[in-house]
């Protein structure tokens, strides 16, 4: 049953004002193209959840899409602050809910597993637990110890990027796996983007690698270069230069609006965006292949 549709149609159909969104990918496979499409379609009052908001949410907050962020680290990885998210929080214009990485991902795992909460061992720090009432403590029912709990997170929409998928949404992804699988199972709807749409036989050739099955996916979108300035392992590099440039752009609200005007509102889709980046950028982000050893599943 083909779930293949255009990204613009998937966003129009599945992302509504006020929704909670989890755009997955820890540094890797971040679906920037979907974030940009959400901006183009002028969604408002979104609750944006990610471990690290990264530039994708900095841009969406800058575009006025969000009323709240849920996060566990609000830096520009390796560079410094996420300037827009930080400024909006400091100004009191953006609501937030804060966790550690493990607590955030445990929320998603609880959602993915269909349980109301999951426990973690105590960390002793205390202040974040006091600041965020979603952290609770309960007695271990089997001993005299205590554990910390966080409630399940069920995003209205998860957006997950993968290297390849068939038209049903069965996908292979590799490299840094992050929280992709947890997000896909926890969410109510899943938009899956893929660099390549492949024949089901390709997926069936390596079933251990099928981390997300089509049965949890609502829409499949063929979006080559979806992740830029993030990356897709094996396909293109992370644009570290862009992450550094954004540090300067995001320090000036006028430059942010100009950038959005040119690179989000001013392009129709990701294909046009990628083309606009130009051959020098394409060359800079190109990487040589490095294949793994194949595995022998055996002809049974």
């Amino acid at each position: 049953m083909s779930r293949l549709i255009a990204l613009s149609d998937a966003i129009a159909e599945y992302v509504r004002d006020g929704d909670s969104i989890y755009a997955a990918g820890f540094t890797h496979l971040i679906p920037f193209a979907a974030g940009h499409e959400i901006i183009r379609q002028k969604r408002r009052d979104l609750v944006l959840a990610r471990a690290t908001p990264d530039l994708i949410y900095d841009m969406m907050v800058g575009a006025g899409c969000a009323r709240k962020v849920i996060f566990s680290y609000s830096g520009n990885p390796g560079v410094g602050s996420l300037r827009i998210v930080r400024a909006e929080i400091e100004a009191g214009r953006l609501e937030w809910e804060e966790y550690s990485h493990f607590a955030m991902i445990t929320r998603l795992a609880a959602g993915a597993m269909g349980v109301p909460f999951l426990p973690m061992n105590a960390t002793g720090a205390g202040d974040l637990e006091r600041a965020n009432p979603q952290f609770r403590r309960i007695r271990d029912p089997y001993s005299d110890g205590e554990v910390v709990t966080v409630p399940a997170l069920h995003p209205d929409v998860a957006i997950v990027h993968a290297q390849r998928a068939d038209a049903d949404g069965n996908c292979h992804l590799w490299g840094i796996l992050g929280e992709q699988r947890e997000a896909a199972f926890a969410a109510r709807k899943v938009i899956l983007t893929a660099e390549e749409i492949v024949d089901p036989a390709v997926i069936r050739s390596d079933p251990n690698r099928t981390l997300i099955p089509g049965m949890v996916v609502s829409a499949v979108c063929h979006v080559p270069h979806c992740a830029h300035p993030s990356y897709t392992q094996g396909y293109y590099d992370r644009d570290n230069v862009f992450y550094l440039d954004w540090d300067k752009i995001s320090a000036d609200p006028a430059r942010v609006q100009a950038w959005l005007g040119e690179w989000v509102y001013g392009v129709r889709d990701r294909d046009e965006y990628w083309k606009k980046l130009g051959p020098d950028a394409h060359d800079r982000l190109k990487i040589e292949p490095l294949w793994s050893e194949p595995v022998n599943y055996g002809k049974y």
Partner: protein
Amino acid sequence: MSIPAYTPSELMTVNAARLLRDQDAVFVGVGLPNLACNLARRTHAPNLVMIYESGVIGAQPARLPLSIGDPTLVSGALAVCSMYDIFAYYLQRGYISVGFMGGAQIDRFGNINATVIGDYRHPKVRLPGSGGSMEIAAWADRCYLLAPHQKRRFPEKCDFRTSAGFLDGRAAREAMRLRGGGPAAVVTDLGLLEPDETGELVLSAVHPGVDAEQARANTGWDLRVSPNLRATEAPSAVELQILRDFDPDRIYLDAGA
């Protein structure tokens, strides 16, 4: 023999590397901790395993990673698992021997603030937040903290306690029965701080050319000096060469120069 010139970052990194042991499983961040691990692996700790909170185990990056999710960490790594797995099966389960930490503030008992300056709900300055540090501080067998020795970075008490050092004292941490032992040392560009039996950070070593009064003047509490204060050995030419080979563009090694 002349001592080679080195930057504060090189000084901290060499001292951090010396604290690592062969067979350590180290939870690494980018920057100086990453360089310290690479240096240790090339010198006295060839079996040290580098683990990143992005889910990478046994990374052998061919180029300098600019983030903990850099693709170079994956190529040639021993294993890559999900983030839930790395935090639950490795860190919470107790397989991590060392955690490297940094933060905007480190207080008298080695607690770290990476969250806010000022009130949490109406912050004067919003810092990035915990990331993995809240759990690393609690569950790694031992932690090393790296920071330039500046008074504003070493307050008596953190504005917000993102990660647990010895809390209000070693007894408080012990009462929490946390898996990990807490901060074993703070490496600064002036020397080393180590916790005493009460969990208070005490100046245990000074780097070449530094005297204890300099460290005390740059600390936000009345920093006690160990009666057995020692001098660290200057970074050797070999250590510096290995380090500089890992960061040829000096992206991290020149910071603080």
